[in-house]
Structures are given as C-alpha cells and as structure tokens.
C-alpha cells in the first residue's frame, strides 16, 4: 500500500526547501523529493544569495550557513573590445550583520538548507525523480516516481521542480518554454588562493565583491556575464537568452571562453584552476510567461513558476518567498480541510501582492524590449566607451572640442533622435 503524506514537495532547491521547512516547522508531515544525489548537486546559480528572504525563514542563518563572502562591493562593467567603463558601489555597512547579500556555492548551501528542513521534521528522499502527478477526478493526489513501487500520495503536491518543470507541463499548466523565455547560463568555478583573491579584488578578510559585465561579453546577445568572489574560488559565468544563442549560432561554452579571454577580464583570472563547469537554463520570460501556478491539490513555486527578475539577477530570493507563501496557503487549506484550487488560490493572490509579483510586473516588458533592440548592447555601450576614452585622453584638445567630437560620434540629428527615443523606451520598460 503506497504511503500518504500531508504534503509532497518535488525539488529541494530554494523554493521547495523553503516550503518544506515552513510546513515541517508547523508540524505538517512533508516528503521532500530530490532528483540529485543530494540537494544542490544539480542546482546552479550565479552565486548571490539575498539575505533578507533567507532570514525571514531562518533568522541569523549566516552565523552557521556555509556562505562564502558577504558582498561589500558591486561593480558594473560596460565592456567594449579593448576597454570598459566601470562603476561600482562599495559600502562597509554591508560587511556587518545583518549584511546585504552573500556569495554561496549551491552544492554546499542547498544541502545545509535541506538539512535544516529535515531537522524540522521534513523527510528528504534523494536520487528520486518525480515523473508525473497522479490525478484522480481532476485533482492532484500524489506523484509517480521513477522507482519501483514509486507512487506516493498527499493532500497537496508542491511543484518546485525547476525551470523545466516536467510536472507542471504534464498537468498542462504550461507548454514547452520558447527560446526567448529562457536564458542559458554557463559557469565555471575557478580555484584561487584566498589571499590572491583578496589582493586582486581589493578586499579585506572575508569581504566579497561581485562584478556584473555587460556589452562585449555577450557578443551582442542579450545577457550578462558575471564574476563573483567565493572564499577560495571565483565564479565566472555568462547567461544569454537561448534565442540569441540560436540566432547568432554561438555555443555557450565558446561564449564563456570569449569572456574569460577578454582583455578586461583575463587579469582577474590569472593563475586559476578550473574546479567545476556548470550549465543551466534560467526562466527569464518574466510576468508574461508565468504559467498557471495553482490547481486542485497542487501549487507551483520558484523557477517552475518562472519567478526570476532577470534585470536584477534575482531568483533564489523570489523562489524562497514563493515557497513560504505556498506553505502558508497550504496551512490555511489544512485548517479548512479543503485543498481545492479555490482554497489554495490565496497563494497566487499573495504572491502577486508581494515583491515577487510586483517586480515581475514592473519589468514585464524589459527583457523582451532589450531582446528586440540589440543596439543597446551592440551600439550604445561601445559609444559610451568611446566617449569616456575621448574625454579622459589628454592630447592637447580642449574639453569643449572633445565634447563636440563625442556629440559628432553619436551621429546625425536623426540618430540622436533615435537614441533619445530608445532611452525613453528603456526608461519606460524599466520604470
């Protein structure tokens, strides 16, 4: 006889674990299914964990969690072929509790987080793939796994099975995502002595630094590259819309190699040794691509629900918040002993009301807009670099003359009008 739990959570990433943790803490009998050898073994992100949402779940988690470095500096590089305009903010208020955010290695962090859920009473089963939801009378009543005697039942199933969410797809909640709704991120973890990292990135002790890289790093495809400092390794990665890779016929690892060899990046990576190579899809369709996320006896959270803010490279925090909100909706449903779509719908309402829904709405057209007009990356970033070069090269020309040259470089009156229009459009989709 197959076992029945109160809740089954499929996927032990940030969303699923946050959900399982919250439920278990409230005394709910939760089964947390993970396909990897252990939680985190199959998970990939650039490497920034946001403190606030994690602390809403486990206060002062940073005292014991395996975080790498608190980030005290965020740099932004606008790359051209052989130049870069960089701006940054560094503040030591981020170097003390409660901190702002941290670099983490997912293989370590997710495992720790899942252990916390287990300590609350969640039952974690690894190396088990959920193949489909078991549906009876139009209601989700359990999941079918790939193991012998693999059926298991529950009042509610939470789908936290990531960007490809086979389960949500099998329920007809969404179709296969289009290439312009997902980004492909490839990343390497490069080993480097911690002392060298601290010297090279101008850090003291455990302080960390993130660099977001725009422009030439993605060869004109919409996306970004990043370089983050861990304790004794660096994360270097590049993420671009899948449609862009297809259109430009570039292989993702070639793009990453290009980034690593870029003269503005190369010096940071000298003497490193490759430790890991990772690749993953990121759901970046935003608000417009959000699938159905509530059904009878079922909720969808995290990447599976397309909860990523591509503009601000936020995702894991949204995932966690969605997991908690799903858990809270389930707790209400348990009180009423009603697991219908109508009852569980409070999850969707609260999610859209939260920062998750608000931010997704705010940027709902942003990715699509920048994808449609590649000249933001192809044209304006090099123009910015030329302007800076012109202005700061001391060659006897007066600053007035230099400003005129920069103005001429922008092009004809028509071009200038177009730029003004583009900037306005960009402001409109971002505002």
């Amino acid at each position, binding site marked *: 006889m197959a076992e029945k739990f109160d809740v089954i959570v499929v996927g032990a990433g940030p969303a699923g674990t946050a959900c399982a943790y919250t439920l278990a803490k409230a005394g709910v009998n939760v089964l947390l299914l993970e396909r990897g050898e252990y939680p985190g073994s199959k998970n990939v992100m650039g490497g920034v964990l946001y403190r606030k949402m994690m602390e809403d779940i486990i206060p002062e988690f940073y005292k014991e969690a395996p975080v790498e470095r608190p980030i005290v500096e965020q740099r932004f590089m606008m790359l051209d072929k052989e130049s870069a305009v960089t701006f940054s903010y560094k503040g030591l208020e981020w170097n003390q509790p409660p901190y702002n955010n941290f670099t983490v290695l997912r293989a370590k962090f997710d495992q720790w987080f899942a252990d916390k859920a287990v300590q609350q009473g969640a039952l974690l*089963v690894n190396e088990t793939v959920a193949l489909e939801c078991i549906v009876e009378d139009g209601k989700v009543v359990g999941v079918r796994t790939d193991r012998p005697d693999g059926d298991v039942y529950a009042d509610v199933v939470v789908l936290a099975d990531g960007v490809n969410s086979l389960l949500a797809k099998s329920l007809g909640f969404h179709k296969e995502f289009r290439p312009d709704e997902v980004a492909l991120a490839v990343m390497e973890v490069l080993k480097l002595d911690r002392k060298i990292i601290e010297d090279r990135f101008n850090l003291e002790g455990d302080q960390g630094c993130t660099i977001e890289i725009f422009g030439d790093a993605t060869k004109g495809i919409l996306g970004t590259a990043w370089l983050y400092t861990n304790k004794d390794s660096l994360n270097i990665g590049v993420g671009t819309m899948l449609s862009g890779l297809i259109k430009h016929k570039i292989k993702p690892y070639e793009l990453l190699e290009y980034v690593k060899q870029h003269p503005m990046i190369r010096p940071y990576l000298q003497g490193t040794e490759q430790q890991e190579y990772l690749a993953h899809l990121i759901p970046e369709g935003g608000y417009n691509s959000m699938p159905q996320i509530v059904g009878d006896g079922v909720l969808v959270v995290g990447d599976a629900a397309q909860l990523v803010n591509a503009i601000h490279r936020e995702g894991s925090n949204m995932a966690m918040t969605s997991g908690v909100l799903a858990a809270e909706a389930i707790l209400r449903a348990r009180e009423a002993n009603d697991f219908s779509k109508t009852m569980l719908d409070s999850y969707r309402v609260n999610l859209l009301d939260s920062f998750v829904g608000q931010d997704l709405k705010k940027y709902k057209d942003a990715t699509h807009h920048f994808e449609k007009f590649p000249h933001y990356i192809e044209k304006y970033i090099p123009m910015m670099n030329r302007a800076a070069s012109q202005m700061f090269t001391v060659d006897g020309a007066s600053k007035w003359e230099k400003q005129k040259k920069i103005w001429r470089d922008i092009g004809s009156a028509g071009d200038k009008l177009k730029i003004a229009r583009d900037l306005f459009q960009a402001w409109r989709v971002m505002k």
Partner: protein
Amino acid sequence: MLHIVACIKQVPDTKIIKMNPKTNTMDRSSAPAILNPYDAHAVEEAVRLKNRYGGTVSVLTMGPPPAVKAIRKCIEIGADEGYMITDRAFAGADTLATSYALTKALEKIGKSRSIDLIICGKMTIDGDTGQVGPGIARRLDIPPLTSVKKVVEINKEKGYAIVHRKLEDGYEVVQSTLPCLFSVEKEINEVPYAPLPNMIRAARYQPHIWSVDDLEDVDRTLLGLKGSPTIVSKVWPPEKPKGGEMLTGTPKEQAERIISLLLERKELFRAKEELG
C-alpha cells in the same frame, strides 16, 4: 530464519579524490563520502538471501557520526537494522584494531539474536587491504570464505553453506559450516534501483549507535591508534603516465602515421608475447 550481518564502511569516493601534494595524504574534503561500493554488493547479497530463506539483515559499521548516511544507504538496499559503533577511542584504527572493534560489536549483536552469516565486501576502496573480513572471522573463530562470487546454498538446519570462490583461472566450489564469513566480489550481484518505500524507510531510519562503553569485555589497548601496529612510513601518488602522441591530420595521414609507429616500436608486441 537467518540472521545475516553485513559489515560496511563509509569511504571517500576515491575515483575523484585529490592528493595533497605537500603532505602526500588524501584530501578527504575533496571527495564525497559514499558507501564502499563492494559493501553495497555485500548488503545486496544479504538481502537476496533473506528473500530466499527468510530472516533478518543487519548492517554494522564503525565510523564517525556522519557514517549514519552509509547505514541509510544499506536500508535503501533492503537491510532491516543498522548498528554503528562510534567513539574517539576507535579513531586511527588499522585493520587489526578495526576487526577487533567490529568483533566486539558483533558479539553484542549476536547476544540478542544469534548470527548465522557475516558478509563483507571484498575490500574498501580507500584502504584496499581486504583484511578486516578475515580478521573478524579469525577472532570469532569461524571460517572465512574470501572472493565469493556466488552463493549456491545456505542450509541453516544442517548448518552449512556452499559458495563459488573466484580463482585466477576459474572458480572453486566450497562447502563450509555455519556460522561463517563471506567476503564478496562485485560480480556476485547487481544492486538494483531501490524501491520508493525503502527510500522512505531509510530517510526515517535511526540506527542503533554504540560507544566503547556500550560494548562488553573490551581491551582498550587493542582499539584505535593504540591497537594499531601498522605504520605508514611513506605515501606517494602513483607516477603519472607520460602523455602519448596525438595523431592529427586527415584519416589517411593518421593511418599512415600509426602504421609506421607500430612498425617502429616493435617492443610493444614483444612485451605482449612475453606475457603469453
């Protein structure tokens, strides 16, 4: 009803472990801890015998607290009970001290339910000695049957076991009295994908955990580092083989190059002939 005990160990995955170039020791943090692969076959064989003849399968390990994971893995395979002895006093044990400690634990397990058969993996992948199994058998004064590749029959009533032992040029059929100890080859079985109920049971399972004080008649001088006469005088990683030559060019050029190479380096063939 048989009571079979499998002795198992959690080991670093030596397929991916790195050596510390300065100290020439294994950097254990560089590799995940796994159930020793040979031991998985030992547990699987115990479970198969249980299914064939009825009975109980217990697993026993000595190790630090995280080794509970290895016991859970055995529950996934189908073991019924897990026992772990863990204590600072056991630390630094060589095969002699390990087999002594495990024997004491087996005696205690045997008191509540007598043991008919002990199964060990051929060896661990971190120590590669294969000595602990026979060491236990000697201390318990039962026959050790090493290199077992097939269990033909276990007859508890008549008190015998018949197995195939792997030899260099075949196998031998051996009959032994019970109780006895097998150490098994990988080829004895294939460990199947565990059913979901086993996975759930394993996730919930809490093993019996004993310290030295829980064991009886223990001579503490025979435990851990103190009880280990083995001295590791030097450790070094094997020399890396020199890189070969990569053939490039068109298939035709590559074929020509390989033929001329084979003609040039006749010693390659001679070595083969000498080996017979």
